[in-house]
């Protein structure tokens, strides 16, 4: 009795807890002592492109060189997908991302990893989410599993837009290896934003008078809505694709009547036909002597005359890709030169007459944003009247890029098949509706119509 009284009321509980703890510890040690590793892959996805969190801190990085999603698809032995998962990658806390692949020893699962921006994902009519292939980074990886194994899968910026081949299991790895077996190993641990195309490239020398430097870099051109367009319209299909543009100089304004006249007067355009006045195209404004349109962009210019004028100045017409690079904020994907705000009558020289606006025709008339809800027809680099004024000739023929430019990241692309006349037009004009100001639109080769002019690139 006295012995029992000597024990504390908690003693049995303490004793039992101690015994349970010792038993549990013994079980844990026993269970953990020889746990065999299970056969699997541990896959780490890395990249040298840009993450969204880096864009705010470094204005020289291009948004078009960034990804904010990683989609992983694992294919079984019969080639059908067995698992899919999307990962949001916003910054260093969520990237690199790693995951496991469970597979028996001796098997070789095929893994497709796609880096993309959510803005380029859209749901098709069947409800399935699809990614624009021309602006995404896709990589195949494959390795035979022997116990527990690790691999790195690197998404190199050089592979933007380059498709993989699931049938032959070939993939783009980097610029030098665009179609190699998926079993190719990557260089380990690249640094994000270290890709050479991620950062804008400044102009190396001074440009001609009246021009502005358009720094180079990667840019997404095109629009998903332009995969298929009305067959009876002259709008050219232009599905999204990433392109790499070298720095160049672009005229700040569209070429004016006196600027073109001075080239003719100086004899720099021998054999070239000047624009003519027309009773049908009443907006034609070129005169051989000083007239009433001295501050206006010259109209009714043929492609041949425009190209000859630019060459006489030591330059050329811009390519469609250069034009869109300049007009869409150099990789920022703007819909219009000023950003994404929808155009109105006060934003640019557009939509005259029955379209409801009364545009001013002088160059640079829409350069002040304060009078139009903060928007003006001025690009990120200060180029004027890209949205309105006159439609502007570009070098490319009136055919989709797919007609002559291979998939993948093209540098300074221009599409001009030998069997098609060169020339197409970009930008809206006083004769087009407001919606034609969208910078991704490109229209067919027009004759020297009353709303067609040009500017030069150098």
């Amino acid at each position, binding site marked *: 009795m006295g012995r029992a009284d000597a024990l504390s009321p908690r003693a049995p509980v303490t004793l039992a807890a101690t015994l349970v703890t010792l038993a549990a510890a013994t079980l844990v040690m026993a269970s953990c002592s020889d746990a065999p590793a299970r056969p699997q892959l541990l896959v780490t996805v890395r990249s040298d492109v840009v993450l969204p969190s880096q864009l705010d801190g470094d204005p020289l990085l291009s948004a078009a060189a960034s990804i904010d999603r990683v989609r992983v698809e694992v294919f079984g032995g019969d080639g059908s997908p067995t698992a899919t998962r999307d990962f949001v990658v916003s910054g260093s806390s969520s990237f690199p991302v790693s995951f496991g692949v469970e597979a028996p020893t001796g098997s070789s699962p095929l*893994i497709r990893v796609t880096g993309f921006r959510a803005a380029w994902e859209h749901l098709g009519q069947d409800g399935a989410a699809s990614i624009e292939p021309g602006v995404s980074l896709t990589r195949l990886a494959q390795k035979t599993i022997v116990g527990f194994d690790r691999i790195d899968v690197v998404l190199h910026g050089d592979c933007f837009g380059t498709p993989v081949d699931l049938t032959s299991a070939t993939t783009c790895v980097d610029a030098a290896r665009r179609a190699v077996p998926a079993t190719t190993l990557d260089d380990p641990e690249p640094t994000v934003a270290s890709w050479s195309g991620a950062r804008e490239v400044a102009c190396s020398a001074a440009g001609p008078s009246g021009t502005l430097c358009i720094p180079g870099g990667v840019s997404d051109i095109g629009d998903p809505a332009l995969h298929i367009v009305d067959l009876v319209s002259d709008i050219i299909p232009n599905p999204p694709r990433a392109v790499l543009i070298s720095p160049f100089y672009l005229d700040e304004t569209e070429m004016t009547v006196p600027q073109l006249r001075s080239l003719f007067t100086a004899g720099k355009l021998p054999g070239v036909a000047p624009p003519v006045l027309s009773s049908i195209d009443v907006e034609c404004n070129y005169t051989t002597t000083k007239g009433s349109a001295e501050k206006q962009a010259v109209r009714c210019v043929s492609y041949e005359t425009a190209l000859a004028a630019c060459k006489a100045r030591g330059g050329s017409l811009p390519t469609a890709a250069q034009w869109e690079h300049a007009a869409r904020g150099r990789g920022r994907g703007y819909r219009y030169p000023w950003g994404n705000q929808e155009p109105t009558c006060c934003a640019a020289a557009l939509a005259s007459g029955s379209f409801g606006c009364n545009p001013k025709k002088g160059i640079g008339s829409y350069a002040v944003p304060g009078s139009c809800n903060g928007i003006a027809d001025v690009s990120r680099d200060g180029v004027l009247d890209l949205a309105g004024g006159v439609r502007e000739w570009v070098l490319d023929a009136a055919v989709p890029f797919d007609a002559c430019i291979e998939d993948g990241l093209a540098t300074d692309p221009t599409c001009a098949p030998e069997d098609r006349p060169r020339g197409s037009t970009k930008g809206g004009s006083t004769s087009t509706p407001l919606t034609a100001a969208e910078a991704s639109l490109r229209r067919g080769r027009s004759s020297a119509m009353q709303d067609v002019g040009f500017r030069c690139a150098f």
Partner: protein
Amino acid sequence: MKRRAATAIAILSFLVLALFAPAVRAEGSEAGEAFQKGVDAVAAQQWADALGWFERAHAIKPHALSLYNIGVAELRLGHLTRARVAFYGSLALDAENNHAQLAPSLADEMNGFIRDIETRLVYLTITIEPAGATVTVDGKPLAVDPTGRSKLYIAGISAAADPSPDLPTSFETAVDPGQRDIVIQKQGFAPQASRETYPVGQHADLHLSLSALDATLHVESSRGNAVVRIEGLDVGVVPVTVKRPPGTYSIDVRSAGYTTYSSTVTLGPGGRSDIQAPMVKEQLVLTRQWWFWAGVGAVVLGSALTVYAVTRPPPPYNGGSSGWVAQTH
């Protein structure tokens, strides 16, 4: 041949204008003055100016001859549909005035012009999809034939701001020959444009269809780092704006320690829906107390360890930073 006919019409029109000008001048000084300026403009081949003066004269004092001259000016400017309406209007006004305003020979000439115009017009059988869309030609809506002489929809005679008539899904329209910009639009659909050059007197079919615009869904939350999922797919951290085709979507907004906000939204073509997801901290319930789970954990751990020790399951797969393990079978 047709160009020669048009030239003949223009010359004849000029002679007729000169012949009948005094008759109108006598009817009122202001109208007459406008009419005379119109005649002067015709002499100078300034057809657009002439049209303005004749329209003004007609507005001040309606007269069949002014309408006739309006028709001639429209014809010279290449506005065949407008000229046709003016000529029919001139004949009707003359008839209302007991044929006292036009010489019979002039009325006969005018009927000839109308027949010529109706031969030169372009007739398009337009099929539109979906129903309810509006069609404009060169920025102006179509109009029911105001002369009442056909079931055609006429292009070029309405002002840009005029309302569009209710169009059937297939109808015939008359437009001027030459380059025409035909645009079909409907709220919530991407407008489609057709630019074609139609030769004189062409009959053609034109199918215009619209595709629905993607709708915009914007999701915000009272908590900054909440993750938004649409139809089970992560789309980003709030605030997030996505484009989706019209339809009904389930939306989840999640943030650790907060009750998941779930909702369903139906997006119409080209529409926009803004969702403000209120994030409410999870209530402190029994299952959220550390001591409860500590006790449960102790029991579960003991049980699990015991079971584990007995059954010796293989170790789990390594899911890396994401914790996800893909199955290959």
